[in-house]
C-alpha cells in the first residue's frame, strides 16, 4: 500500500461527492487529509505540507464543480496547480559572465551526483550552447575522485584540470581559472567533494573557494530520493553559500521526489536541471508541472509523450497513433517501430515512465532486455506477410514453423504473441490519455 498515488487515495472520497454541485467544507477536509498523506508519502517535508494544505483548503472550499471535471479531478487540479506554482516556471538557463570564463561550482552531499552532473553539464554546454568548458577536479578526499572526472573528460574529449590530492581546493580553482583564460575555455565547472551540511570545516572550504573565485553559478546537487532532511540540507547549503540553482538527480528512478518541493519551498532557488540516468547525455531541463504530477503519483506521462515526439517523425507518429487507436497495428508496424524505439533509449527507461506499467498484467514479465529485441526481430521476420497483418491466424503448426525458422522456441513465439496483444491494449489506453489531454485538459484516468 505504501506508494499509492493521490488519485488512488482520493477515490473513496470522490465517490461520495460525485453528483454534488459544490465541494463542501467537509469534503475538502476529508480530501485534504488524503492529500496530506500522499504528500508525506512522497517525502515532501512536513512543514511544507502544512503550508500547502492550508492554501489548498482555502482555494478548494465552496468551489463550483466544473462541468468538464469530476470533483476528484478538480481537487487534484487545485493541488497540482498549487504544487506547480510553488515550484515556479521552467528555468534551465545558465549564467554567462561578462568576461569569460563563466565559473560554475557544484556542491552537495556525498554521492548525490556532483561529478556525474559536472560531466553532463559540460556536455550540455557544448551541445546546446556551443561552449568549450574546462572541468576542475577539486575533490581531493574521495578515493579515485580525480580519476573519475578524468575518465568523464576522456569520454567527452574535454580537458580536466587537476593538481592531484595534495594541493588545496582553493589553489586548484585559482590555477584552473588562469589556465582556462590561457586556453580560451569559456566555462569552468568545478567538481567539489561531497560533504555534510553540518561539517563546519568542509563547508568553510566551500566558502573560501566562493570568496576567491566568485562563481557565477553555484549549483546544489540533490538526490531526488532524499527524505525529510532535504529541507535542512538545502537550507544549510543555501545559507552558507547562497546557491544560485539546484540540480535534482536520479529522477530516472521511481521515487516520488517530494524533496523537490521541499527544496524549492525553503530556498526559493530554481531547480534547473534533472538527472535522468548515469550517461552523460541524460540531463534534462527541469519541468515543474511534470514534477507536480509525479509527486502526486500520476506518472510521468508528459515526459514519455515528449520523448516519443522528439524521436518519432511527426507524420509517422500521426499514422501510428491512428493505428494504435483503431487497433490495426500489425507486426509489420511493430518491426518498423522497434528501430525507432531503440533510438529513444533503453526500453526499461521508457517503461518506467508509463504510470502503472509495472502493475499491468503481462507487461510486468515482459522481457525488456535489448538482446531480446533481436530474438523478437527474428521471430517476426519468420512470419509470412499474412501472419504479420493478422496474428490471429497463427495456429499451432504455424507457431512451430515460425519457431524453427527463427531459431527460437514455440514458447518464445507464444510469449511474443501474447505480449503483442497486451501491447496493443496498452497502446490504446495511452492514446486515449493523450486525446483526453488535448480535449478538455487534465488526463482521463479510468479511475477518475
Amino acid at each position: 500500500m505504501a506508494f499509492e498515488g493521490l488519485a488512488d487515495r482520493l477515490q473513496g472520497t470522490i465517490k461520495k461527492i460525485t453528483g454534488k454541485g459544490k465541494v463542501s467544507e467537509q469534503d475538502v477536509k476529508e480530501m485534504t487529509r488524503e492529500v496530506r498523506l500522499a504528500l508525506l508519502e512522497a517525502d515532501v517535508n512536513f512543514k511544507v505540507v502544512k503550508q500547502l494544505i492550508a492554501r489548498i483548503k482555502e482555494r478548494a472550499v465552496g468551489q463550483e464543480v466544473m462541468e468538464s471535471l469530476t470533483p476528484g479531478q478538480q481537487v487534484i487540479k487545485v493541488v497540482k496547480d498549487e504544487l506547480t506554482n510553488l515550484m515556479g516556471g521552467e528555468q534551465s538557463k545558465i549564467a554567462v559572465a561578462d568576461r569569460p570564463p563563466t565559473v560554475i561550482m557544484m556542491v552537495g552531499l556525498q554521492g548525490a551526483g556532483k561529478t556525474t552532473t559536472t560531466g553532463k553539464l559540460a556536455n550540455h554546454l557544448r551541445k546546446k550552447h556551443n561552449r568549450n568548458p574546462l572541468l576542475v577536479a577539486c575533490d581531493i578526499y574521495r578515493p579515485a575522485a580525480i580519476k573519475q572526472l578524468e575518465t568523464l573528460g576522456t569520454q567527452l574529449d574535454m580537458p580536466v584540470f587537476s593538481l592531484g590530492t595534495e594541493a588545496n581546493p582553493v589553489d586548484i580553482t585559482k590555477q584552473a581559472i588562469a589556465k582556462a583564460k590561457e586556453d580560451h575555455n569559456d566555462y569552468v565547472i568545478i567538481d567539489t567533494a561531497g560533504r555534510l551540511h553540518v561539517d563546519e570545516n568542509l563547508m568553510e572550504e566551500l566558502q573560501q573557494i566562493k570568496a576567491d573565485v566568485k562563481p557565477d553559478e553555484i549549483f546544489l546537487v540533490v538526490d531526488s530520493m532524499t527524505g525529510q532532511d532535504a529541507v535542512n540540507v538545502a537550507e544549510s547549503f543555501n545559507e552558507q553559500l547562497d546557491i544560485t540553482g539546484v540540480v535534482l538527480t536520479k529522477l530516472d528512478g521511481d521515487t516520488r521526489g517530494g524533496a523537490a518541493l521541499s527544496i524549492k519551498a525553503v530556498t526559493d532557488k530554481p531547480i534547473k536541471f534533472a538527472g535522468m540516468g548515469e550517461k552523460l547525455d541524460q540531463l534534462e531541463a527541469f519541468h515543474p508541472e511534470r514534477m507536480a504530477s509525479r509527486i502526486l503519483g500520476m506518472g510521468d506521462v508528459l515526459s514519455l509523450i515528449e520523448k516519443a515526439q522528439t524521436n518519432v517523425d511527426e507524420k509517422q507518429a500521426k499514422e501510428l497513433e491512428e493505428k494504435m487507436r483503431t487497433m490495426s497495428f500489425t507486426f509489420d508496424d511493430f518491426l518498423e517501430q522497434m528501430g525507432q524505439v531503440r533510438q529513444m533509449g533503453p526500453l526499461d527507461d521508457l517503461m518506467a515512465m508509463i504510470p502503472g506499467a509495472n502493475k499491468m498484467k503481462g507487461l510486468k514479465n515482459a522481457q525488456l532486455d535489448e538482446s531480446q529485441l533481436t530474438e523478437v526481430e527474428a521471430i517476426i521476420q519468420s512470419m509470412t506477410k499474412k501472419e504479420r497483418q493478422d496474428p490471429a491466424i497463427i495456429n499451432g503448426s504455424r507457431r512451430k514453423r515460425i519457431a524453427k525458422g527463427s531459431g527460437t522456441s514455440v514458447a518464445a513465439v507464444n510469449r511474443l504473441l501474447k505480449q503483442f496483444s497486451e501491447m496493443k491494449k496498452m497502446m490504446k489506453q495511452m492514446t486515449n490519455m493523450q486525446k483526453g489531454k488535448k480535449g478538455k485538459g487534465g488526463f482521463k484516468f479510468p479511475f477518475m
Partner: protein
Amino acid sequence: MGFMDKLKQRFKQDEETKEVSEKYQEGMTKTRNTFSGKINDLIARYRKVDEDFFEELEEVLITADVGVSTVMDLVEELKMEVKRQKIKDSSEIKDVISEKLVEIYYGEEDKSIQHLQLDGEGLQVILVVGVNGAGKTTSIGKLAHQLKADGKNVILAAGDTFRAGAIEQLEVWGERANVPVIKHSEGSDPAAVIYDGIKAAQSRQADVLICDTAGRLQNKVNLMNELAKVKRVIEREIPGAPHEVLLVLDATTGQNALTQARTFSEATDVTGIVLTKLDGTAKGGIVLAIRNELQIPVKFVGLGEGIDDLRKFDADAFVYGLFADLGINEEKEEGE
C-alpha cells in the same frame, strides 16, 4: 525501575558496549538532537497526553522519515497502551515510547542473525548491492578492514565495471585495508569479474570474498536482471553462496528506501542492510520503517567516510543513542 534506567544500567555494565554506545552517540549527535530533543520538548510542553500530543508526536516521527504507515501503526499502539496503563501525565509516556521503538527495532526475530553469518566451511562470499551512490564501495573498504582485523583473509572483486573510476576507487580501498582486488577493465562483463574473483579466492584459499557491484536504480529491469545473473554465477560456483547479500541504503533516503529494500530482495534475497551516512542525517527513522515492514535485519551502520567508521548495528545502542538526551534529563530531574 524505568525502561531508560534499565538501558542505562546495561550500558554501565561492560566497557566494550560503552565504547560502542559512545561512538553511536558521537556519530548520531544530530540524530539525537532533533529526534529525542523534540520528544523532550514535546513532553515538556504537554502536561497531558491528549489528541494534540499525539498529533505532534506523529509529526516528530514523520520528520524522522519513519514513514506514514509505520507512524500510524505506532501511534495507534501507543494510544492503546496509554489507555491500558491509564497514563494521563506526559512524563509517564516517555518509557512507553522508547519501549515501543525498541520493540520495533528488535521484532520477534532471532538476535543472532543481526550479525554477519560467515562461520561456514570454505570460502564465504558477500555480495554488495544497492542504488547509485549509496556507499557500497566505501562500505566494502571498511568491512574488508574489519574482517582483516579479525584475522580473516579477504579478497575484493571489482564488479562495478560501469561507473567511471569505480575500479580505481575499490583499488584504493584495497590498498588501505591491505587486501587484494580482482579486476577486469572498464566495460567488461560484471559476472565474469565475479567468476574470476571466486576462482582467485579459491586458489589463494581466502576466507572471504566481497563483491562490489555497480549502483543501479531498482526500477531498471535490465540492470536488476544483470544483478540476478551475478548472483546465479556465485551460486553455481559455490553451493550455499553468497552467504551474505548486503543491501546498502543511504540513511538520508526517504520512503523510496522501502521500495529499494523490497525490489533488491526480490532480485537477490538480501540478508542484511548496511545503513550509511548516519553521521549526517538528522533521522535514522527509516530503520524503523524498514524493520516494521520488512524482515531484513540492519547489520551495519556507516558513521563517516573513514575506514573505521563502520559499526555493527546494535539496536540497544542505537535506541540508547536516540534517547541519551532523555536519560540525561531524567538524571537532572532526579537530582532536583
